[in-house]
């Protein structure tokens, strides 16, 4: 026995013209779209657009938390070009980014490839590599402060086994920034590894098997199949790394306070110092605008390199 259910006939057929019907549908879809976007737009407006406009406006003033302020035009910007602390901070930040980004990306990719194999204890290793990412930077920095302790630190203790003299890692101008770079590379690995791992697992098995059948060795398969397949992810990791390294602050604040001298002073540290220690908010805002421009330039370069890579 079976029952056939028939669609009941409409009591009154629609009289709306087909063209108007689709326009109404589009309009309602547009309204729904805006309604769904509204919370995000509101959030972006309050927490991104307004602050960005405020920074742009403040950068043209001499506001320093006092009762009075004045428009100073572009003098904050011209002052910045003569400010040796700003120059040092910018250089240290760029250097930090140039060293940390490629090395951490390369190490993360290598680890991700390793973790993409069928090995024992895979879950443990994945967790272990991700732990630095979820650990508070202050805790990470405190541990590394002990590692770098000239008297009783692990770094000197380990190196002494090979006959090396103790080093004053963070107190020596020559080694302070490289020491921070090591921590930065280590701390940023977890996120990159997870992203690379996801990308590697998305590489087409068919293509890899085809390449293998065509006689491609492991390296050839990596260069010709895996590498192009993870291209968009590479770009994503690159962009997030650029933004992350340019915003490095907490690590420096806890470990060196920008010292010795200004050897580890980075851009955000300089902005913080100018804004909240020296109370020069207008000046710090101009510095922030320049930082945004520099990040944009780096992202543009990354994008061009990515395009060139794809075209190759």
């Amino acid at each position, binding site marked *: 026995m079976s029952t056939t259910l028939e669609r009941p006939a409409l009591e009154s057929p629609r009289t709306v013209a087909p063209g108007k019907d689709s326009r109404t549908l589009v309009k309602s879809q547009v309204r729904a779209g805006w309604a769904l976007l509204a919370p995000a737009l*509101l959030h972006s*407006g*309050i927490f991104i657009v*307004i602050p960005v406009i405020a920074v742009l406006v403040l950068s043209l003033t001499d506001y*320093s*938390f*006092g*009762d*009075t302020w004045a428009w100073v035009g572009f003098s904050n910007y011209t002052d910045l070009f003569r400010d040796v*602390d700003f120059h040092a901070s910018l250089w240290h930040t760029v250097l930090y980014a140039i060293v940390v980004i490629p090395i951490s990306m390369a190490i993360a990719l290598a680890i991700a490839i390793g973790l993409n194999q069928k090995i024992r204890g895979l879950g443990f290793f994945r967790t272990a590599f991700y732990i630095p990412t979820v650990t508070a930077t202050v805790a990470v920095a405190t541990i590394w402060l002990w590692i770098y302790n*000239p008297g009783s630190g692990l770094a000197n203790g380990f190196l002494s086994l090979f006959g090396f*003299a*103790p080093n*004053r890692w*963070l*107190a020596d*101008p020559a080694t302070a920034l490289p020491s921070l770079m090591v921590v930065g590379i280590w701390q940023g690995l977890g996120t990159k590894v997870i992203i690379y791992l996801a990308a590697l697992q998305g590489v087409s098995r068919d293509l890899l098997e085809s390449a293998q059948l065509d006689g491609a060795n492991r390296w050839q398969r990596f260069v010709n199949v895996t590498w192009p397949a993870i291209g968009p992810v590479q770009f994503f990791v690159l962009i997030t790394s650029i933004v992350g390294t340019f915003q490095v602050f907490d690590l420096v604040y806890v470990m060196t*306070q*920008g*010292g*010795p*001298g*200004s050897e580890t*002073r980075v851009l955000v540290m300089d902005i913080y*110092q100018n*804004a*909240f*220690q*020296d*109370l*020069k*908010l207008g000046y710090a805002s101009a510095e922030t605008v320049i930082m945004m421009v520099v990040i944009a330039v780096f992202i543009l370069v990354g994008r061009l390199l990515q395009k060139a890579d794809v075209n190759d």
Partner: protein
Amino acid sequence: MRRGVGLTLLAAALSLVVSSCGSGVIDKSTDGVPPAEATGTLRVLLPSFPPSTTGREEFAKVVADFNKVYPKMKVEPDFATYKNLNEKLSTSIAAGIPYDVMVTGVGWVQPFASKRIFADLGDYGVTPDVIKEKSLGALIPAATYDGKLYAYPLVADARAVALRKSAFREAGLDPDKPPTSLAEIKTAAEKLTKRDADGNITRSGFDLASATGFRQSFTTFLASTGTPLYVGGEPNFNNQQGLDTLLWIKSMINNVQPYGQQNAAQQPLVFSGEAAMGIVNGGIDCSEKGVGQKVCDDLEFFRFDSGKEIEYVGGDLASIGSRSRHKDAAWAFIQELTKPTTLDAIAKLNKKIPAYKDASNSPQAKSNPLSQFVADGLVYAVNENEVPSNWLEMRGNFDIQLTQAVLGQKDPAKVLANLAGQSR
């Protein structure tokens, strides 16, 4: 039309959000209102009470006494540290909810007074003569801007020099004749410095207490030559005395003390035996909980004297926020803070000297030999003196640029000239 209405509503909602964030927590003014009727919240920013149980208990006593006069007012404390004081101040101003009472240190008053963030205490009858009469005259320059008084001293943070008698005897030096001039200190420090077979310093000859910057030590050493850092807001260090002092520091670092040396507890290295001689702050705990009586007995205290006997003295200074809506209550709170019993409590909590007339007879001074020594020496007090209005900026500049000179990265003479040029 409908779009216009929607946008207007959105703009109104945004304005509401922004305006409520900016001013929703500001009380009505209580100035002129009888204390018993005044209501609101008094916001207090102070690094004088550590946020420990003891610190909070002592602060609660001050609040209890304040509430006897202002029973309906709440007190909201912010137990800051000197490290984050500026952040707290600047963000509170930017947020539109400035503090009513602000306790800062030497070097803070002039910059904030010049920005009209601190109120003139002359309105409450506080003048330099009043401070001389009731408090510490040595801190008057630090509390004065443009001839007006903007802060009331709470405690003095005095520094002395200490030596280990045993180390002196071991090096063939007489601990009863401490080296006081810069030249004598260097000679003694070189004899006291111990090294391992590789030449690494294992015990410093002199602790300059400058792990985080050379500003205070430079100020101290320079003042001992009879040269204050600033005079009337003008730089007084870009001269031969300044250069000699900086070169002396440079000759000490990595010679008698490794650069950046400090212990995990950030205690004076001479207390722990990591240095044979060095700068110490204003108190020592001789009990077994502290360094112990044996160490205390091995210590001798003295002051720098390269032509002028001096003692570096900082301190906690209480001010009223110029934008406070409870200025009268704020002044009443400062009066509670400056009661001798409260000052004694603050002094004990921070190992500092209470800023009242007879500090030498204070309980804190009587509690340990170092506090007694620095309390007796407050007449030799020096500090950065009459700093320029951009001193907050200069503090960082001094720390960075003096370090660069000491580490040989920049020419010392050029560094001093540059710092003088940056002082405004």
